[in-house]
């Protein structure tokens, strides 16, 4: 049960119950859908990027506490950030979950030290690393973000 409490930290339950930046944006914002085909979770990410900066972001969709809180935490973390900063954050977040860029489990090599402080509230999702099956829930919104940035030509 100790692990379970690490998984379901209070911050996570809070973001799950009260998701931030909920909704969709109108064009010219871009709209990207993400699926987790295994459990049916869905994310709809609206991104408004202006001059290389994410000026607005909204998240819709449905799914488990991990996927939804991760989306909510992400939206709060990237709003106002430059595209470059957001991309860097994707990397750091995945590193926290011991994942490589393509979501392969990172090699046994000593992981590069990550600056958990730089992740802020996102660090609450660290407990997910112990639940391999849930890692896909935590990364759904982040993979959707990467796709959204690619598709919007950023």
């Amino acid at each position, binding site marked *: *049960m100790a*692990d*379970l409490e690490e*998984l*379901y930290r209070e911050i996570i*339950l809070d973001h799950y*119950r009260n998701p931030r930046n909920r909704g969709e944006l109108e064009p010219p914002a871009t709209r990207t859908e993400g699926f987790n085909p*295994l*459990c*049916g*979770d*869905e994310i709809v990410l609206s991104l408004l990027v202006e001059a290389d900066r994410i000026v607005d972001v909204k998240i819709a969709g*449905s*799914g*488990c*506490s*991990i*996927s*939804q809180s991760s989306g909510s935490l992400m939206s709060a973390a990237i709003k106002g950030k430059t595209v470059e900063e957001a991309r860097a954050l994707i990397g750091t977040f995945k590193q926290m979950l011991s994942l490589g860029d393509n979501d392969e489990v990172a090699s046994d090599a000593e992981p590069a030290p990550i600056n958990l402080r730089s992740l802020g509230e996102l660090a609450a999702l660290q407990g997910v690393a112990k*639940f391999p099956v*849930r890692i896909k*829930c935590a990364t759904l919104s982040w993979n959707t973000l990467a796709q959204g940035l690619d598709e919007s030509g950023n």
Partner: protein
Amino acid sequence: MEAVSDLNVAAVREDFPILQQTPRGVRMVYLDSGASALPPHGVVEAMSTYQETTHANVHRGVYATAERATFLYEKARLDVGTFVSASHPADEIVFTKNCTEAFNLLAQSWGEANLGEGDVVVLSEMEHHANIVPWQQLQARKGFTIKFLGITEDRTLDLSNLDELLDGAKLLSITATSNVLGTINPIKELSARAHAAGALIAVDGAQAVPHETVDVTDLNLDFLAFSPHKVYGPTGIGVLYAKREHLADMPPFLGGGGMIKDVRLDGFLPADGPQRFEAGTPPIAEAVGLSAALAYVSSLGLDAISAHHRRLTSYALAAIEEQLAGKVTVQGPVDSPQRAGVLSLTVDGVHAHDIAQVLDTYGVCVRPGHHCAKPLMRRLGVNATARASFGIYNDVDDIDTMIEALHATIKMFA
């Protein structure tokens, strides 16, 4: 509640060493037989004995072990045919890799030959993807129409427009038991009405065959597909039953060795019978395991198994109603005797994935997700359910543990 069932669960549990595992430090409560049943020791042993004493490729050797392997493989075909009461057990059973491949075979062989522009295939909204996607794939190439039987508010099949849907249809392909709702469909009636309308009937028996007697002759089925790994058998093998007269007319599916009479540089001549549909080395050890699984299930008796599942289901439904009413919703018929041991649960404000995660810490194995029935999930207006499904090794203690864990889940997310 019914009288104590004929099944001696304590004795049955002895046959499943896996139930002695305690990966979470507590008694393992396996409530995921609908996804895959655990294999009893006898099945594992039949396979390993085969592998360690007999293994050889089938059909082409004259030496002793090849002869024996061929015999065992063909015996498995007979055993399966007999289990579902086929009229010609040796000629009407095709081994596939799983239930899903059986539907693909049906679509790409029977469907390829029989469906075209203007034709109609009727499915239902409670189908597993295995009985939807292959038809959609074929449709993209052949342009027939797919129609769907709906479901009613009490989560049974909506038969009100059945005749209308069947009018002019060539095939009704439908599940005997919903893997999400537990609904048991009136297959005998559907078979009669499909035939009356001039259509054939194909049945998805994945959830029914492990739970009740499925007699293809009595039900007058044209096709039946099911999954051995849900009937306490091994993975790596599936079953398609098809009436001999249909098989005789169906063009080949996969091509390769074993399914031909002759091959020339410019074409090939297909073999007759089930062989035509079994290209390449078949799942031999798996067929041996399947024989053992069906013998095991028969030794317990399908009537006793059905009664046992009914008893567990009633007990679970009553416990949920008593202790968790208003908090836990059962997605499926709640007071029908026509109900299998499959309980799809949703909890307001708690996602199925989270339910399953908390239940896991109690050793309770349930499956969260859409259960490969996304159209049904949309119809139910839910994103996912946490599904508990019963097997011969479950007892009321298992259900009590699940209920306790559900209480904890609700507390955690309240």
